[in-house]
């Protein structure tokens, strides 16, 4: 009797038939586009044609297979279990299996006790991810391999989840990095994700087997895995069918004729048990009225052939698309274009300009401006007159349609931007954090997955009778929600409408974080390509319960605003002629991209240099001005308290020797603040202290394999790299302080550490190979010096009196360190005020001083012309306050106090750094915001993680400064 196995993966379905002796006689592999029941029928029919309608034993497996198993009433085998069964049968000496599928990633350790690691709910480094990235690059998945082979440089791409990686890749594309290099970088990111996220410290060794689609189709992916785990894995024959074969081998298989299975599927009806929402439109009529209302918000269009004279060009180089608008003197829209940038925005504008010059010689570009992610690149490439931050561009555009607009929401392909306007000034900005991205392009990806164009997919939503409730959380999770809905019998129409509603809910409740839509105001302009989808627009109006304005050129608003801006500026500056390159210059324009390592300092930034002919070039990827101006950023540090702190901390890394041998201190988490204390303490006790350096990417990757929880905050993850450094340096002993309590500054109800800072040492103890180096987890607190001395004397076997002396010295050192910081803080404040520099209080925790954690945001702010001070330098300047939360963590109490101080200072603004995954910040962000809001001050929050996408941060900071400037002008 033949043994039949079916594997329903997240994107593909496989069927196999095995003979009694386990030889494979039939196999089939197809994408199912989520039409699981239909596809199942089709593939079983194909199987039946091939092997005949015999009685077979049949089992089913796969992450999306439970529904089908239920429908056809065949036994379900968990897919990992199936893989293992197949491996045991076909490759019995397998030690480790790495299997990547459409949406899941797994590592199976078969030896020494079966251990299975599957990606959690928050990981996307899988087939779907590679697919998505390929789409982003405008290439097919099959090109990925060929391109990767030609790469020379690997960029760092966040590997934690697909959405993060996207926001890393986007700037690379916009900066003109080579597609070959990006392709390789994506594959390496997948490898890192799998190893860091799944292996979690367990070494991948022995005979490694690669399974699943991506690893089968992309040899380069296997190559990078081989590199990373330093072994040569094999990709067996039939590597796509292991799950299917494993389920065929299952002893619990049911004896059935194939035709019986097909029959069961034919009579299966979905249970329609998904949660239904109200339809978007009750009837045709409602939709017609809705359309008519929105058609009113339009711009007069003029045929460019009939126009001659001055025109104004706006370019919005967005993350995935590039938009252009050309306006006549009277504001008529002459030309516009909305196109994907296919990873090469320069090319897109090049073709736009040449056709403009070619076809409409009578039009003279009088002024031009660029905005968006690629504004610098555009300005440099085509020698444009102006550039402006995109938030301003959108505001200018929106004002044109509603002069008293009080809220603008823009949902584009990759990002959501919202800003509140108060008194004609952008007053509050919400950008989607790396984790809630996935907007327009998400709908697109979904439409494609279901075999529809984005437009058709949107149309389906209009007639949906009962949209599926898909929730409002991060869209990465949506894939499985959609699958579930399909399993429950939802139609494509209902899903399309459900997705549109979820995009809206995501924006409202996740990005803007409103609970009461009235908070947004009544005068709302919506824009961005995603709102051209009527379903999204309708869902938005329904959710808010009011009518909004959607300009017909919703997708072009950035470019439109930029064009208007160029006109305003031309007038203001009395610009005679635009500096934009001429037709001749355009024809001979060359564009070269080069990557080099800057050797200006120890950061060794990877620079991307775009050069356009011999005269113009754009350098990006730099953290300071040195590669651009050739000069060291001499004056910058003077206004940067973070830099000063780093300098101070660095001085404690000096080795002083000691008769008791070396003692390693990881410069991470709690030690950041207490480094002066512990270094002094241990030096006093006679240890030769070795302190790990500031974090770097390399340091992080070096330790990432032993991180057990992929959702813990980045500062905690870095601890592993620091410990690895100490291990590599073969110190005699490692010390990590553990303490429930922090310093008691008498400012709150209690003085706890956060749980991660308090006990992360336990994770190191349990998960990292220290190569025999003893680890001391010091459960110590600095609240009671006497008790501390007692504990130190016990832990380090010294006399109590000696310990007390060392403790006292350490306290002195800590006090002097803290004093230096507050003094430097007031010095910076004084000097900045003398020079009228705005002051930014970059409020975080002491470990946000680390350059790898803060990604150089402090320096970027200084480059933008402001000064940066820390929360702990001003927190002592306030008395004890009362708050709307339980104020029980020392580090966080300082942020509340800093906020209370800042709100009284006209020239200071607070920017809060929030670590992704920092649970406490869910409490503190709202409170800090409330504190500032009470006095009508702007609150800015920057979420940081592994990602190094400074571009988005820069937009936020520039918008803040633009808002401050406008406030200033109003004041005068």
């Amino acid at each position, binding site marked *: 009797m033949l043994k039949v196995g079916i594997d329903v993966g997240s994107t593909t379905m496989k069927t196999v038939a095995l003979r009694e002796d386990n030889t494979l006689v039939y196999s089939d592999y197809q994408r199912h586009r989520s039409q699981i029941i239909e596809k199942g029928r089709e593939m079983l029919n194909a199987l039946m044609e091939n092997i005949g309608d015999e009685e077979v034993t049949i089992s089913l497996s796969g992450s999306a297979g439970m529904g089908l198993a239920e429908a056809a009433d065949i036994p379900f085998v968990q897919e990992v279990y199936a893989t293992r069964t197949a491996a045991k049968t076909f490759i019995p000496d397998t030690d480790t299996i790495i299997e990547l599928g459409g949406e899941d990633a797994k590592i199976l350790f078969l030896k020494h006790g079966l251990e299975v690691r599957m990606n959690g709910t928050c990981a996307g480094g899988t087939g779907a991810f590679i697919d998505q990235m390929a789409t982003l690059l405008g290439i097919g998945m099959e090109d990925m391999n060929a391109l990767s082979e030609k790469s020379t440089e690997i960029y760092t791409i966040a590997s934690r989840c697909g959405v993060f990686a996207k926001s890393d890749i986007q700037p690379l594309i916009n900066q003109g990095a080579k597609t070959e290099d990006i392709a390789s970088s994506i594959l390496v990111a997948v490898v890192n994700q799998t190893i860091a996220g799944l292996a979690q410290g367990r070494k991948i060794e022995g005979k490694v087997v690669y399974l699943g689609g991506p690893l089968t189709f992309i040899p380069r992916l296997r190559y990078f895995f081989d590199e990373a785990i330093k072994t040569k894995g094999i990709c067996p024959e039939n590597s796509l069918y292991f799950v299917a074969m494993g389920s065929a081998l299952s002893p619990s298989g049911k004896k059935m004729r194939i035709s019986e299975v097909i029959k069961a599927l034919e009579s299966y009806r979905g249970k329609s048990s998904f949660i239904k929402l109200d339809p978007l439109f009750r009837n045709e009529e409602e939709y017609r009225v809705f359309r008519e209302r929105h058609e009113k918000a339009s711009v007069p269009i003029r045929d460019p052939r009939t126009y001659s004279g001055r025109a104004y060009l706006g370019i919005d180089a967005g993350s995935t698309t590039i938009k252009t608008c050309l306006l006549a003197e009277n504001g008529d829209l002459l030309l516009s274009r909305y196109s994907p940038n296919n990873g090469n925005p320069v090319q897109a504008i090049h073709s736009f300009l040449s056709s403009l010059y070619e076809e409409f010689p009578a039009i003279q570009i009088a002024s031009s401006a660029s905005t968006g992610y690629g504004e610098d690149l555009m300005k440099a490439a085509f020698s444009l007159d102006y550039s402006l931050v995109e938030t301003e561009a959108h505001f200018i555009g929106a004002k044109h349609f509603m002069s008293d607009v009080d809220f603008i929401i823009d949902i584009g392909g990759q990002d959501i931007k919202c800003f509140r306007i108060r008194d004609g000034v952008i007053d509050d900005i919400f950008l989607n954090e790396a984790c809630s991205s996935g907007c327009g392009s998400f709908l697109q990806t979904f439409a494609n997955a279901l075999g529809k164009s984005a437009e058709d997919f949107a149309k389906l939503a209009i007639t949906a009778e009962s949209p599926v409730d898909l929730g409002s*959380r991060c869209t990465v999770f949506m894939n499985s*929600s959609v699958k579930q809905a399909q399993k429950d019998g939802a139609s494509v129409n209902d899903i399309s409408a459900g997705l549109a509603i979820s995009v809206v809910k995501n924006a409202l409740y996740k990005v803007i974080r409103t*609970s009461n839509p009235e908070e947004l105001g009544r005068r709302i302009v919506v824009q961005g390509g995603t709102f051209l989808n009527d379903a999204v627009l309708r869902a938005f109006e329904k959710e808010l319960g009011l009518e909004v304005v959607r300009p017909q050129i919703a997708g072009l608003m950035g470019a439109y605003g930029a064009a208007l801006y160029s006109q305003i500026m031309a007038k203001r500056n009395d610009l005679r002629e635009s500096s934009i390159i001429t037709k001749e210059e355009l024809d001979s324009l060359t564009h070269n991209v080069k990557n080099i390592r800057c050797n200006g300092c120890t950061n060794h930034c990877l620079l991307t240099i775009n050069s356009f002919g011999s005269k113009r070039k754009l350098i990006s990827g730099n953290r300071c001005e040195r590669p651009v101006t050739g000069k060291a950023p001499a004056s910058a540090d003077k206004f940067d308290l973070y830099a000063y702190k780093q300098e101070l901390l660095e001085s404690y890394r000096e080795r002083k020797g000691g008769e008791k041998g070396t003692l390693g201190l990881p410069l991470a988490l709690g030690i950041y603040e207490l480094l002066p204390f512990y270094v002094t303490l241990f030096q006093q006790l006679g240890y030769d202290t070795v302190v790990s350096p500031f974090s770097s990417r390399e340091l992080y990757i070096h330790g990432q394999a032993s991180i057990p929880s992929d959702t813990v905050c980045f500062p905690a993850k870095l601890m592993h790299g620091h410990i690895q450094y100490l291990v590599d340096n073969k110190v005699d002993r490692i010390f990590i302080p553990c303490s429930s309590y922090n310093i008691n500054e008498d400012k709150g109800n209690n003085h706890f550490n956060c749980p991660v800072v308090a*006990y992360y040492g336990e994770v190191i103890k*349990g*998960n990292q190979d220290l190569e025999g180096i003893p680890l001391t987890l010091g459960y110590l607190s600095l609240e009671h010096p006497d008790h501390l001395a007692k504990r130190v004397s016990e832990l380090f076997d010294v006399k109590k009196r000696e310990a007390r002396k060392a403790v006292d010295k350490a306290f002195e050192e800590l006090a002097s360190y803290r004093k230096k910081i507050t003094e430097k803080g007031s010095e910076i404040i004084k000097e900045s005020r003398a020079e009228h520099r705005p002051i930014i209080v970059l409020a975080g925790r002491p470990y946000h001083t680390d350059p790898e954690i803060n990604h150089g945001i402090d320096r970027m702010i200084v480059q933008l012309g402001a000064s940066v001070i820390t929360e702990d330098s001003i927190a002592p300047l306030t008395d004890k306050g009362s708050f709307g939360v339980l104020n029980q963590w020392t580090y966080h109490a300082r942020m509340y106090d800093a906020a209370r101080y800042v709100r009284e200072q006209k020239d200071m603004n607070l920017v809060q750094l929030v670590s992704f995954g920092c649970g406490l910040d869910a409490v503190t962000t*709202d409170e800090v915001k409330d504190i500032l809001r009470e006095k009508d001050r702007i609150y800015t929050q920057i979420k940081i993680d592994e990602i190094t996408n400074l571009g988005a941060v820069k937009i936020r900071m520039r918008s803040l400064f633009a808002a401050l400037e406008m406030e200033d002008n109003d004041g005068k």
Partner: protein
Amino acid sequence: MENKVFTEEMKKDGWTIVVPNMSPVHFDIMKRIFINHGFKALLLENSSPSVIQEGLKYVHNDMCYPCLLVIGQMIDAIHRGLVDKDRCALIISQTGGGCRASNYYFLLIKALERAGLGNIPVISANLQGMNTNPGFKITFPMLVQAFTALVYGDLIMLLSNQTRPYEINKGDTDRMIAKWTDILGDCYEKNRGYFWGNMKKKLNQISDDFASIPVKRTPKVKVGVVGEIYMKYSRLGNSNLQGLLEDEDCEVMLPPMMGFVLYCFSNGIKDEEYYGGRGRYAFIMKHFGMPILSIVEKWSDEAVRRHKEFHPAATFKELEEFGERFIDRGCKMGEGWLLTAEMVELIEKGYDNIVCTQPFGCLPNHICGKGMIRPLKEAYPDSNIVPIDYDPSATKVNQENRIKLMLAVAKEKLEIETD
């Protein structure tokens, strides 16, 4: 922020106190105590998806999942009219520890304000005297009753879980739970018959009663559940994990709540040892609190041991020892070292298939849950631990799939063992 207080008049007027439901067995008993002390109480059972929606709407989305659920459930109940919004108060626990749970009270107030329900009083249930309300005072008799209810609840939960999968007549076990919930409720009403001598007797009777249920004991996959306390016990939190496992023909073990209480009390002793400055509290706990609690714990233990088919839970002493093998007992925020200790307990007591319920955003679990799985696996290679993430958008399919894998391995082990 001005919070409206729950006054004595409100109590007299019969305002309803809305109580989140953490563990059905325990809280059904606790509810009786509430009523007996003159409060009208509503134990929340609403669990439709709108609970999560309300939570997402009014609570910061990065907050821990239990917080989102509890607050979402309360606001959902009000919006659905399950309780009169002008004549109700909400109660929420406040532990005062270093994790975010101590802030639930404030977050609930903030959420109510945002929902336009700022006039509803919020009562903080804590033993430290934080945020007092004149109409709601935890009196000594109430405290004693609540404590005994916890002990009874633990025993009933333990025995019922070890009986239900094997019962011959479906429903016997649940009827027995209802019977004892009534008996105990009556005792609390009369305020007698539930403590000291009577307690020991009652515990034994409970054990005998459950042992009298006709059963057929066949080898079954035994699964232990650990994790953040709300997620571990609450059906709303873990999407009825116990039901899912029992449907898969497993016996489920939930470590008793008493462990958590003892853990909380004992932490002060460790604090004094490590950090100093808490001498008085530590002295009282060490020499009076813990010993008294241990006596009660012993009664419970002995009650279970009367019947050899029942497996007692680990005593707190044992737990301390189990925990220390892997993690320092100074690790005391959230479930802290207790979570690790319970995993060791389960493995040592034959429940080596473990679901570790990890709610989204739970910080201590990074350390005591996920962070300890590797060393546990090294020490016990045969243990079969699966951490399950729970968050507002985690789909059941995904969670079930992982649980199914754990079960597939467990069943295989069981087959080898019973062969």
